[in-house]
């Protein structure tokens, strides 16, 4: 039996744990040509330089703002949509709606951003309409102030249908007789939702929340890279693009890795913290005590 675990273990070892050793470059003046072994160790110099860089803190701030907005606006959206779709009676309509709302998930960010540009951009549908009717154009795509809402909107448009799947599965497993008996007892639709539906998806919701919190600093990459120049680095730089620019573009591999490491450590702490919260709710979380 244990032998059957070997492929799985090897997978994690080779593709997750061994590459993690590469984080050592966060403490080196690393150059790919020289390799790990010969790059000089610089101790915490990379971290010091990182923390002294105002651009890093801007990236942290932006990441947190986007993460918070996504948590508030994006996280509940799939649940709401799942409840809505679940309430559709006709199986055909339901499948049709489901397929339509999944689809955007498979569209790459390049296309999503291009679509938004075509509709909301300075020369897009909306603004051409405004101009033709003698109104002031309103360029949403290059406005740094509304950028956080814009990117959250894009994320919801793209992924809300995908996020819905797991909730739909949880809803499908609810015993229909519970609803029937509740209805017989005189419970209205809101009461049924509160006492039957929501408790049924609670553990899934909390599990997803824990996972989301662990990953909270990964707010996206291509989405920001693509729109960074439109609103300026100050508004659109997030930790992942910071790592890209410093590590790859500027060739400061050590600093890029240090920023990635900070992100990883914070993520691990968040998972641990969120899991505590899950236990407090009496749920299992990602692992039990």
């Amino acid at each position, binding site marked *: 039996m244990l032998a059957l675990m070997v492929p799985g273990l090897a997978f994690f070892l080779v593709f997750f744990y061994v590459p993690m050793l590469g984080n050592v470059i966060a403490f080196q003046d690393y150059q790919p*040509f020289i*390799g790990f072994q010969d790059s000089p160790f610089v101790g915490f110099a990379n971290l010091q330089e990182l923390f002294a860089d105002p651009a890093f803190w801007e990236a942290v701030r932006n990441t947190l703002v986007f993460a918070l907005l996504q948590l508030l606006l994006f996280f509940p959206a799939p649940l709401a949509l799942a409840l809505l779709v679940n309430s559709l009676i006709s199986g055909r309509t339901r499948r049709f709606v489901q397929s339509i709302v999944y689809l955007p998930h498979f569209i790459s960010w390049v296309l999503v951003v291009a679509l938004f540009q075509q509709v909301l951009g300075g020369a897009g549908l909306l603004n051409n309409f405004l101009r033709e009717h003698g109104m002031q154009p309103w360029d949403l795509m290059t406005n740094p102030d509304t950028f956080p809402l814009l990117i959250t909107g894009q994320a919801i448009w793209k992924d809300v249908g995908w996020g819905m799947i797991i909730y739909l599965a949880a809803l499908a497993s609810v015993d229909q007789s519970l609803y029937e008996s509740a209805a017989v007892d005189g419970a209205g639709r809101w009461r049924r939702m509160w006492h039957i539906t929501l408790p049924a998806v609670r553990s899934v919701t909390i599990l997803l929340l824990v996972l989301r919190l662990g990953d909270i600093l990964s707010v996206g990459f291509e989405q920001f890279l693509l729109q960074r*120049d439109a609103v300026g680095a*100050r508004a659109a730089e997030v930790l992942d693009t910071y790592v890209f620019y410093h590590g790859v573009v500027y060739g*400061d591999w050590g600093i890029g890795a240090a920023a990635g490491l900070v992100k990883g450590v914070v993520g691990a702490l968040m998972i641990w913290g969120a899991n505590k919260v899950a236990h407090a709710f009496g749920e299992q979380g990602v692992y039990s005590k």
Partner: protein
Amino acid sequence: MNGMSRRTFVGLGAAVAAGVASTSLTGCGSSTAKKTEAASANVKLPTYVPYTGVKPDLPPNAKGLDSGFLSYPKTLVRSVPKPPGDGSKVTLLTEIWTPPPTPKDANAHWQQLNKKLGVDLSVIMGTDPGYDQKFAATVAGNELPDLMWIPPNQGIQHVAQLLEAKCADITELVSGDAVKAYPHLAAMTQAHWKTAVVNGRIWGAPSPYPAFGQVYGGNPKVWEKAEGLSASSPDEFLAKCKEVTGGKVWALEPIYSNAVSVMSQCFGVPNKWERGKDGSLTFWMETDAYLEAINFAIKLKKAGVFYPGNPDMADAYIKMAQGSIGACVYANPTNARKDLRINAPELASQILVPFAAGGSGGPRHHLHRGTIGYTAIKKGDEKRVKMLLSILNYMAAPFGTEERESQEFGSRDLDFTFDKSGFPVRTAKGKKEVEGLRSGLETATVSPSALIASMFEGDARVQDVKDVYAIEQKLIPIGIPDPTVGHYSDAYTEYYPRMSTDAKDLVNDIVSGRKNIKEWKPFWTEAKKRGLDKMRKEFQKSLDKSGE
């Protein structure tokens, strides 16, 4: 040169484009740093022997004017008498700018070419972006390719150590008259060869590229309204931009950093660096004239003549072909004409010749360094290195030779046919099998740039050559080179990528109104401390040593 990525080389021209780094090494041991300072000084460059086997219709000149070919020759010259190879396997690491060709096993053209080369040539094809990673990964593996294209602008680092440790020093084989053994390499000018000099020695065959720099190319239909894309003063240019803007048409693409870079030529800004009478170097973005160019871009922005889009929009050229953008910045006049012909065959792009915008310098044209790097050769015994040089010599065969045709177009009737005016056109098979491979080969090395009618699509090829030739004649009197070409600075490799990205971000922010122009000068005061002064010192030292 065919098929170069347009955006990349626009970027190459503008020092401000994202992520451009340079050759040579970064912050490493001081011993190598000292060596690099010697740079190109004191090496005897190969003798320049222009190829005379094929006579151009429009003559080149020593100042850099391209030669022009108006027709496709009926009979080709055979310039390499026998296959240069020795039957062995040869690998080439290069970059392609087109979709990849059919793999060698299924590619009849490739196999045919291998017969002509006399080697079994395999090509490792990198793409843009990402060549630096492909390069690092390939070089880090144990099997170093025999031939490696080394670009100066894609962030490849530690080039000097790599060359010293693993590549063949070909100085003795090509220096002075020795190069005459490779006539097509001898047809490259000394300016070309300078690119391939590191630590005072020559390391490979240059990859020539047009020597002209960034220009605005315009859609003639849009500019018709304002009597064409030309101006004699900033006010006139602004007025013309306003005139053509309206409805769903905007005069200029919104890539602000390129706009400022091209406009800076009108304001007399130096080409990257300027050497004062006392030998001191000034970086172009530090100058007051550059600030004026930004100010002018702000004016254009306020007038609403920039297309309302993302400053890194990828489809500006398409939008221009469709007529919703009036003018875009191109890497050079040839590309401006070529590109619009591809997207809209009936349109002949107009080119804005820099006008005088006041100030001291008068209009200038920033010339390109004239190469996109060089192809180095793996260390080996002299026989093998010479054989590989002969392969590169074959690849650099100029227009009008059999060797060039077999690389550029493949086999007659199979890979290409002649159109009604006698120009070769690739067949569907040729597009699949020849185009991508040619792209990789011409990146590695190619004959010096020339205006060739078959480079342009459509039915007005001859006129295209004449027009671009005429534009080049106008640009030459105001053309200035970058004085640091052929000189190396460690600090440049280390600090430049970040400095240029930050500067580009700041130009974007200032022109779009998110930041105040007052932030520009302090940025450069700060930049001095963050590496600019160090680069300046290193370049200066290298220039002083070489007596330039």
